[in-house]
């Protein structure tokens, strides 16, 4: 299979072209995954761009995104395939009148048209280029994780009634985890590993600018500064990138061209989810009776 990227820098540039701002860490792993044909396991707190990375990679490689959203209780029948049990029963029922030979019925009800294809099987069978996203894998039980591992190892599946179906391509596979539990060593060994954390100020500022283009540079800088400040506090849940973006949109909507203490006090709930965190942030950032920010005209927030 032809390689999709020729250098790490090219990955950075192409992701940027679809408004995804990566760094050497993110782009390096994508580049490597393409070359080594290995899945990527992306871990990190919620809202730092894990899911978005898969979408962006699909977009820049002209691939269709197939997504398996994980949840507690997800099993083989929802991840891989399932026989359409209702349809089969109805078929058997309908047959009672005609007294068809059982062998015929049996081979009939275990044929393609009674098969419910789930995302993993869909990915294996797909002929066109795809990116397979297995989202929030930490939410499945250990048994399902083992199933995923098996599928990822050979990219094939054998259905007793139909035989083995072998994948025609080695797509880019991205698994994400919000780190609510440790994944198995075996799965980790199989994958390349990427930990995405909250971005540095510069990258966050850029993300705000590409995602909310109406925001000017000075305001984007202030936004990133407030968020950095909040993340340095000892709070329960630090604001993520998606909250930063939500906040930027809120400011825009309310017509605030600059951030001051009053604005922060009024809109902090967009960035922080816990009352305790909001109270603490107010105490730290919004000091009673202080004037608003000065000197933002220069473009520098000094």
């Amino acid at each position, binding site marked *: 299979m032809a390689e999709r990227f020729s250098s790490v820098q090219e990955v950075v540039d192409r992701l940027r072209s679809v408004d995804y701002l990566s760094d050497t860490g993110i782009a390096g792993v994508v580049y490597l995954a393409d070359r080594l044909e290995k899945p990527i396991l992306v871990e990190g707190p919620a809202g730092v761009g894990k899911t978005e990375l898969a979408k962006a990679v699909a977009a820049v490689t002209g691939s269709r995104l197939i997504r398996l959203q994980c949840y507690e209780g997800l099993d083989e029948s929802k991840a891989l395939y399932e026989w359409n049990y209702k349809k089969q029963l109805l078929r058997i*029922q309908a047959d009672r009148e005609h007294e068809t030979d059982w062998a015929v019925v049996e081979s009939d009800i275990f044929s393609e048209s009674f098969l419910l294809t789930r995302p993993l099987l869909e990915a294996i069978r797909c002929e066109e280029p795809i990116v397979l996203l297995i989202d929030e894998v930490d939410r499945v039980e250990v048994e399902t994780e083992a199933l995923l591992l098996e599928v990822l190892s050979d990219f094939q599946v054998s259905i007793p009634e139909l035989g083995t179906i072998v994948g025609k391509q080695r797509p880019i596979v991205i698994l994400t985890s919000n780190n609510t539990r440790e994944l198995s060593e075996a799965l980790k060994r199989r994958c390349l590993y990427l930990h995405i954390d909250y971005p540095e100020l510069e990258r966050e500022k850029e993300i705000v600018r590409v995602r909310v283009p109406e925001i000017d540079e000075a305001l984007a800088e202030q936004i990133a500064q407030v968020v950095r400040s909040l993340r340095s506090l000892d709070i329960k849940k630090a604001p993520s990138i998606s909250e930063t973006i939500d906040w930027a949109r809120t400011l825009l909507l309310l017509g605030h061209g600059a951030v001051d203490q009053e604005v922060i006090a009024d809109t902090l709930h967009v960035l922080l989810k816990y009352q305790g965190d909001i109270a603490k942030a107010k105490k730290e*950032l919004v000091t009673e009776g202080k004037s608003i920010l000065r000197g933002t005209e220069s473009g520098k927030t000094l």
Partner: protein
Amino acid sequence: MAFNAAKMSDALTRNKIEVPSGIGDGVLLDVFQGFVHELRAAGLPVSMTENLDAMRAVEIVPLSDRESLREVLAATLVKHFRHRSAFDTVFDVYFALHSGGVNPEEDAGRGEVGDAEENGGVPGQQGSGGSGEGVSNEEIAEMLLAALMSMDRDQLRELAAMAVSRFAGMEPGRPVGGTYYLYRTLRQLDYEALTGRMMQRAAEQVLDGETDSPDAPESLEARFQREEYEARLREFRDLVEAEIRKRLVADRGVEAMARTLRKPLPEDVDFMHASREEMAQLQKAIEPLTRALAARLAQRRKHRNRGQLDFRATVRHSLSYGGVPAEPRFKNPRVSKPEIMVVADISGSVASFARFTLQFVYAMAGQFSKVRSWVFIDGIDEVTNFFAESDEISEAIHRVNTEADVVWVDGHSDYGHAFEVFHDRHLSEVTSKTSIILLGDARNNYHASQAWVLKELRQKARRLFWLNPEPRGYWDTGDSIVSDYGVHCDGTYECRNLRQLERFVTAVIEA
């Protein structure tokens, strides 16, 4: 400064590392295997597959692109974010940039060294490792301030090198990790005062020159400015540290240096001896663990998604399929109200463990509303509300320490008495939905054990666990009576670091 195999071999030769005569790939392979060996020695579980993946990764990324190389190697070799910092240290040592060694000035004939003086250029503009002779300390300080204000990274790197040459006072052959040199260099640069000086400089640059009066609360803009400068200074500090390590590596060789820098992985750091910083890290790691634990203990059954088959509903529903029971219907499983009780020893013998214990309790309480907690020494007191009412752990701990009534006679551990009181007051509240976790070293000062309490608790409760902060080898020695209690528990676990806590949580989850 590019990393390449020739330079690497050069560095290796100078570092007196034995390399096969063939340079190039052979050398790189050696360096690489040494690198992986050191990662393993540092505790990273690098498997054979991962080792091979990493070798393929090295072939794919040009060695001159050092940061990409770092990232692709990390992607293949580091599968846990907690291990990243250990990885970076080893990477920096093994894939160090070309360096002049500990005492570049005396190291005559080494190319880059001292270029600045020889070429008569402005010190700090070129070359590396020169001490910038002819430049006064004040001038260095001024150049540093200017570079920090404009965040000129190249200039900062030069200045870091210059500062190390001039101030660190490095001596060849000393088996140190470099913290001492770092400290010396930064002190000479008056590092602690630099944020203030940058703030002042910024104020002078602003036209009105307005500054906050010293006792006014910090304005928002001043806060952001301070945070920005602190971030820049951290970056500079890292540059100084990197420079020192680079020279130490050149002096002592990669292997010795890597060995000196080896530290326990975060999961192996002993709760009792963790530094403040380490404890803060641990706290973050404890959070998801307690979440998993609480979730598991809160579950009624492992597969409780479906209740029993509801026969009547299934039949009724089958009518729409012409009598075929196509969609089985299930009764809703009955909702249970599980509860977790945590009972923790906070006596002197586990004082340094108590910090972890309370953090654990705090994290548990935050996960799950039906967590009740008690602390004891020879008396016992419920502290559930301290945790429920505090937004911050420090506040909760403060209340535990000042308000909890845990001394009965003399404030020396008496598990037996504490358990008896617990029995009298709370046994009736323990039900088949209650999980109980006891934390302590079971050092009972030779008092009566009253182990029968645990026996009764276990009979009533769903599960009963004991976490002991002492190394297993000390159990049941002296006045420790873990086994007297342990026989009545579903499990006794040594729990003195994160790895062991994880093991306990996994055991509970998989049970």
